[in-house]
């Protein structure tokens, strides 16, 4: 699942054998034939739709009378003006869920990589296996776990944690369901494996002797972690945070199932505009803003994470 870092890596040199062999006429076009069907699929069903959407976002008209391109860029401005709270909320919830995933996922990835011993494979299976139960069913289970009279809410209440979260605005009125906390909790849960797997991949590559060396040089365990382990796991942290943040920012399932109208994210708005209100230009503009915002944030993030001292 460490897909993001791997695709960032420079393309490998093709084995030199192909070059040293006498050129075969038959092989010259082989790569193009291999690429053609798949790339055609991506161009027609991924790239082309983006162009259609861009065009839709500057159209005006009605469902009955049809739409025409009028270069009506005001749609963008209106859409953003009306729905900026949902945009902001999406970014905040997704950021909170990403931090939550990192804090929860790192110890588990570390445990699997260094401490699990012969339990390693079993724990890996337990991390991946929930994937095979539909995530909607698992998200609905949180409705039971966080139910108003359930043990979780009861415990949080008697420990006065709910008072604190109420004060912070994360929960309201002694409930967890239908509050931002429930949505963030659901997002964290749903995308946690996408954090754990890349973290594990990069932790597992670390040479165990580096830990010994740090210990020999009188580094305390925490110092070893801070100076050796964590910096070396940065590729996993970067791709893990991206794999969590991007889908979380566009998600509307958790907000719909665990939240309320006060927790609506931009995904909810796009979905409603597209499938219920059928205001295609606004929906297209919103989804374009979301795409641009995420691509911009991801680019800045990769640049920063790439240039900062990784070792």
């Amino acid at each position, binding site marked *: 699942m460490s*897909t993001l870092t791997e695709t960032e890596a420079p393309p490998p040199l093709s084995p030199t054998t192909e070059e040293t062999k006498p050129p075969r006429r038959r092989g010259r076009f082989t790569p193009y034939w*291999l690429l053609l069907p*798949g790339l055609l699929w991506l161009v027609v069903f991924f790239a082309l739709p983006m162009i259609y959407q861009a065009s839709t976002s500057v159209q005006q008209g009605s469902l009955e009378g049809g739409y025409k391109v009028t270069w009506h860029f005001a749609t963008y401005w209106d859409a953003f003006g009306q729905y900026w709270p949902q945009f902001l909320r999406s970014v905040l919830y997704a950021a909170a869920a990403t931090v939550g995933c990192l804090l929860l996922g790192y110890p588990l990835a570390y445990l699997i990589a260094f*401490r699990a011993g012969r339990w390693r494979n079993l724990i890996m299976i337990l991390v991946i296996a*929930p994937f095979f139960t539909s995530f909607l069913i698992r998200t609905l289970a949180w409705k039971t776990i966080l139910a108003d009279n359930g043990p979780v809410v009861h415990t949080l209440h008697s420990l006065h944690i709910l008072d604190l979260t109420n004060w912070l605005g994360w929960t309201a009125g002694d409930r967890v369901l239908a509050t931002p906390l429930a949505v963030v909790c659901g997002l964290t849960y749903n995308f946690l494996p996408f954090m754990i797997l890349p973290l594990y991949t990069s932790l597992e590559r670390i040479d165990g002797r580096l830990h010994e060396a740090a210990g020999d040089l009188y580094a305390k365990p925490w110092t070893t972690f801070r100076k050796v382990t964590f910096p070396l796991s940065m590729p996993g942290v970067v791709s893990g945070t991206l794999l969590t943040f991007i889908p979380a920012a566009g998600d509307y399932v958790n907000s719909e199932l665990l939240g309320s109208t006060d927790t609506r994210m931009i995904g909810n708005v796009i979905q409603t505009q597209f499938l219920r209100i059928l205001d295609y230009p606004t929906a297209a503009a919103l989804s*374009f803003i979301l795409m641009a915002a995420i691509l911009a944030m991801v680019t800045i993030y990769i640049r920063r994470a790439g240039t900062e001292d990784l070792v």
Partner: protein
Amino acid sequence: MPLVNWLKRRLVVIAGLLTLAYLLLPNVVVTVFSFNKPKGRFNYAWQQFSLDAWKQPCGVADMCGSLSISLQIAVWATIGATVLGTMIAFALVRYRFRARGAVNSLIFLPMAMPEVVMAASLLTLFLNMGAQLGFYTILIAHIMFCLSFVVTAVKARVMSMDPRLEEAARDLYAGPLQTFLRVTLPIAAPGIAAGALLSFALSFDDFIITNFNAGSTVTFPMFVWGSAQRGTPVQINVIGTAMFLVAVLITLFSMVVTNRRTKHNA
């Protein structure tokens, strides 16, 4: 303070196991509530033990139909994405060609795009083309977003492959086709299998893109989504539990087989 020291040394283990519990808790709830006999239409509060749902897993109208549609789409999407993705992966690793950067970003972008954006734009395309939304539009969408994941999985495997193995095959007078079928393909197989498995899981569980492009076709995730509004039948939990168990059993079985084989070879 021996207890404090003990806790300190095991802090990572304890924190990791707590995370594991957080990950597995919903599955435990799903399993327990598959034995529930709810009073109202919703299966969120525990009432009493019952085996009814397990005795009649298809007792709910349309649920097993949606399950079968999801399985069909997942199988075809897996086949489509695996074939197309494997071809791209081989081209990327084994050949030099123009516009490699453009190809790489075309493969990377679908993975870096929020699902809503892809779903909405694909719907715009289908609406503009006047396509009939349904089974085939879902299938087209699923092949599209599974493709990139197959490419990445297969690419990683083919890249780590020793090219000398193929040279050896050629030196031993194997033709190109023979080399590919007897040497290259078997070595690449784990990567291809990983890509296929991932495709199946992604397609079977996809909701957002399917929801936009399904028309009136109902897949299993869409059935669950609808039931969250209308009332959740216990049978949903039965299916969820069964899928979890089958997944764990298959993985355990394949692990035992691989272990045996490696021991046998050693």
